[in-house]
């Protein structure tokens, strides 16, 4: 079986600086794959290239056998690969429900003029979007805050809102940008459960980029480790925990420590 998403020899150079060098890995359907690495390892750059928010210098990203890199973000989203952002990227002056209703616009059956003139199809869409927004928020345990304005939400809820907006587009692959960053232990545990239920119950393949080691270890089926823009390891959490090169990348080599 061919993997759902393939990252093939992806390289990104900014002038003389190589942010990603020849990174290759696959994401299988229905798995939770994490990309980790120390600061400056090129995780975010890779993330942006997969979601086409940034072009690759060379190499390509393939989704269901089709090249999706070096394209436009909205086209990738329409194909079913949707990214989330860190908490500040939200629709500030919309309520939670409005945001989720809006994010379903890809499923609209009526045209823009159709909406303008209020055709039957447009009314039908609006009702359907409202219903599924309520269902989704119920699923994510956010019903209580659905009429809150996004700018008034605390950090943990903002992250959940980001995921809700991403999920509302009905993605096949959800790319999460540091979903646990800046969270305390309890919040992280909740978020881990949330991400897992998204995969288990919605059947969404999840790829995430993250710093938080314990969370990554508990949530991931497989982990890809980047260091200085290159992939240095790939495997299950247990394999990664015992990988020499990974330990070295995170803690520095034994020689370095003596040198200090």
């Amino acid at each position, binding site marked *: 079986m061919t993997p759902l998403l393939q990252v093939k020899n992806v390289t990104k150079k900014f002038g003389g600086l190589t942010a990603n060098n020849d990174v290759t890995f696959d994401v299988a359907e229905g798995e939770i794959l994490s990309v980790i690495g120390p600061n400056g390892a090129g995780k975010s750059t890779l993330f942006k290239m997969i979601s086409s928010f940034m072009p690759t210098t060379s190499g390509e990203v393939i989704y269901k056998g089709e090249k999706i890199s070096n394209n436009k973000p909205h086209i990738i989203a329409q194909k079913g690969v949707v990214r989330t952002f860190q908490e500040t990227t939200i629709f500030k002056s919309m309520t939670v429900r409005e945001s989720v209703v809006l994010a379903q616009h890809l499923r609209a059956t*009526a045209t823009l003029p159709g909406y303008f003139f209020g055709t039957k199809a447009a009314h039908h869409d609006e009702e359907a979007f409202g219903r599924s927004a309520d269902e989704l928020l119920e699923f994510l345990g956010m019903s209580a805050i659905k009429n809150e304005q996004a700018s008034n939400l605390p950090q943990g809820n903002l992250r959940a809102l980001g995921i809700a*907006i*991403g999920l509302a587009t009905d993605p096949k692959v959800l790319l999460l940008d540091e979903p646990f960053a800046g969270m305390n232990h309890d919040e992280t545990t909740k978020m881990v459960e949330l991400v897992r239920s998204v995969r288990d119950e919605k059947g969404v393949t999840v790829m995430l980029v993250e710093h938080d080691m314990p969370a990554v270890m508990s949530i991931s089926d497989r982990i890809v480790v980047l260091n200085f823009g290159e992939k240095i390891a790939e495997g299950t959490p247990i394999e990664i925990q015992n990988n020499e090169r990974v330990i070295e990348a995170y803690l520095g080599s034994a020689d370095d420590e003596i040198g200090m």
Partner: protein
Amino acid sequence: MFNNVTSKQWMGLAAFLFAIFVAVPMFIAATGRTDFYFTLTMVALLSIASGGVWLTFYIGRINIGQGAFALAGAYASAVMITKFSFSFWLALPLAGVFSALVAVLIGLPILRLRGVYFAMITLVLTEVVKLTSLALDITNGARGITNIPRPDGLSVFGLTIIPDFGAMENPKLGFYYLACVLMVLAFATLYRIVNSRLGHLCRSMQQNEELASSIGVNISHIRLIVFAISSFFGGIGGAMVASLTQSVYPNTFQVKDSVDFMLNVFLGGLGYVFGPMLGTLVIYFGWDLLFVAKEFQLLIYSTILIILMLILPNGILSLRLKKPGSDVAKAADASGLELKEGK
């Protein structure tokens, strides 16, 4: 299609329509101030163009180039009527379409710019259209196009819908009614856009373009549509002004007019669909009223504007009590934010 309008809003609309179509003509007839017809007609026409500017603000772009599209529309209609003997009623929408097409051509490269960079480019546009009209033969260069015939009659199947303006006893009143009808149509369209899917997509872009594109909104496409609609309004406004004054010159709309269109929008309130109408009325009348101050006219006028913007950053309409959860009030806060953060 207007089923989300509350009964209170319907009452307000009815009162407004009564005021402009019945009360104002009665007032003018009673006081004999027929000069008000020209002023109010201009206010109505300029507010249509300002409404267009408002719509570009709605996608988070500062548009100081509406004069360019008004001038393009004015020339387009004047050329169609005088050189190709088009009916006014055909030339008017075509002038709007012409401006919209120009906007698409210009918008393709410049709409990717944000904040002050987009504003700077639009500031140049008015001058560009002016210079183009000076250089072209079809626009008669500096002499402009004069003696544009008044709107002809419009009849469908032999039934006269609109009489010939040239044969009217009081063409000023005819123009006033026409301008008001167009203004009502323009703002009903704006209201509907803002409250339908296009408006929601615009709001998502105004608040966060990256997030909007991540959920599949084709932001460059929507920007272009909105800029075209905005310029269509500018073209209609311009064509009507040309018809009203029966002439168009390269300086019929200048950079100052473009700035005024933007000020009208600011003053009325970015968060309110009907803000541009109020803003245009206040600015146009305010300037005229200050005529008594002679050489201090500009000084007093600009001081008042600065003070108004300091104490009412969300426009005059923000004085109205905000309804909780009202779309427009929230959009006002957001657009204020966007402008400050604009890169």
